[in-house]
């Protein structure tokens, strides 16, 4: 990394992940700077999702999932601290929108507090809800129906609700796992705009299948192939002069 003045927020050191005996990702090393959007690209099955699920330690929840190596955030190895703490610092948005069906829109936004049994005064919870929904660019559409069930919203709205839910916990890092793969083009472009706005407050790691999307929204890109990190660097550079032949072939649509 050339910016020596800035400590990276997140560093992955020799990160490998397994399902039972099968190694899914192999010795991944890279650092992520603060307030960057990093996209993680690569063909299906190359370990993109596993990689970001390692960052918030969700990978070990999957049957047979284990990981080795270091994930250092602010100088602390996340593998050594309690998963509950890790996940309160690192938010996640999943491929398919998954609002809690038993909760209203309002409750969904503060679900992190409700579910953890954290009591907050009404006034503050109202503020959190409005603030998070505004940041997720959903406030204007739902402010008159906050007591409706979250599942009544459209797919794109549900996904923004899920982003609001993650933002409500004030995460330092937001992991997005193909957040637009289940959405139509219009909803997709809204989420993309959102991602660019959000990086003022939060660092974003985004898995995407969509090459154009990576080019549009990310500062840096990681290209993975068969569990290995092939190339990592500024998105602009990688898209114009890829260093590795496999990256070039993927970007030009020769495989993937």
């Amino acid at each position, binding site marked *: 990394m050339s910016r020596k003045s800035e400590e990276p927020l997140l560093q992955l050191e020799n990160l490998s992940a397994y399902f039972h005996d099968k190694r899914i990702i192999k010795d991944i090393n890279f650092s992520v700077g603060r307030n960057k959007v990093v996209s993680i690209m690569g063909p299906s099955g190359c370990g993109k999702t596993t990689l970001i699920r390692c960052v918030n330690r969700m990978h070990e929840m999957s049957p047979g999932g284990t990981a080795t190596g270091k994930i250092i955030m602010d100088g602390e190895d996340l593998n050594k601290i309690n998963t509950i703490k890790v996940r309160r610092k690192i938010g996640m948005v999943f491929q398919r929108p998954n609002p809690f069906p038993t909760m209203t829109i309002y409750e969904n936004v503060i679900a*992190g507090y409700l579910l953890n049994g954290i009591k907050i005064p009404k006034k503050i919870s109202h503020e959190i809800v409005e603030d998070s929904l505004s940041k997720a660019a959903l406030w204007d559409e739902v402010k008159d129906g906050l007591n409706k069930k979250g599942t009544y919203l459209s797919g794109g709205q549900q996904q923004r609700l899920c982003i609001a839910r993650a933002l409500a916990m004030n995460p330092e890092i937001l992991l997005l796992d193909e957040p637009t793969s289940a959405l139509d083009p219009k909803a997709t472009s809204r989420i993309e705009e959102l991602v660019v706005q959000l990086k003022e407050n939060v660092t974003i790691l985004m898995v995407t299948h969509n090459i154009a999307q990576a080019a549009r929204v990310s500062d840096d890109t990681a290209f993975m192939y068969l569990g290995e990190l092939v190339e990592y660097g500024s998105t602009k550079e990688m898209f114009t002069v890829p260093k590795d032949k496999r990256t070039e072939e993927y970007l030009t649509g020769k495989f993937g």
Partner: protein
Amino acid sequence: MTRTVYLKEILEDEKMIKRRIVQNNFSGVLITFISSLVVVPLVLILFYLLVNGISSINLDFIMNLPKPVGESGGGIFNAIAGSLIIVAVALVLSVPLAVLGGIYLSEYPDSKTAELVRFSNDILQGTPSIVIGIFAWVLVVVPMGHFSAFSGSVALGVMVIPLVLKATEETLKRIPSELREAAAAMGVPYHRVILKVVVPTGLKGIVNGILLGATRISGETAPLLFTAFGSPFMNVNAGKPMSSLPLVIYNYATSPYDEWHKMAWGASLLLIIAVFGINMLARIFVSKKGGR
């Protein structure tokens, strides 16, 4: 002839398409007919019960206690109350166990314990009800030294565990894992994920399972024969023998008195109306808006 032409010919053969349409319509009619046969036994039972039982049912029948043989009139209030008490106590005893067991099977499906529990549960489900009655007799009646409603509840409780447990497991297994992950990704400990996300999301299915279990055991006679035993008197003390609708039906129907036969018909009709009612309740509950 190239392959494309050949395939086009056989795929667009008019005769064959017509034949398939006929076959399709025929099987449609056949399947509809055969499936509707399922309704026949129920309709016949209901019809027979209505014809024979409706004349016995009146306010007296529901509100009064039985009278000795020879005296006319009298009702089965004690049996109605007894059925309610015995079934309610059975559910109180068994539902917590069954629901917790179902949660365990759904959330930790691959553990050795889960396999053992699932296997035992399936065996228990297949255990004849009379055997479960003997079990409750040995477990409760013998130590207590006399029959009691409580021992009947124990028997019915054991019977209903497999049903509620399976219903809970199946309901919770269908809840997408994404919901559990969404909660876990916010740092929610797993026990809270289960209590606050998994169970509330599946609550309808669980309650439905409990209601259906209740209808299942409310008609059971065999396990009550040597546990709750039956009683001609009004009794709300679970420590003593108690009447119940199936017992009344059994005792009256096997008696030599016409008067009692009529009452057995009436009690049968009442019981099936109750079962029908609970089923409807379960349906309404499940189809209510919102949720999954």
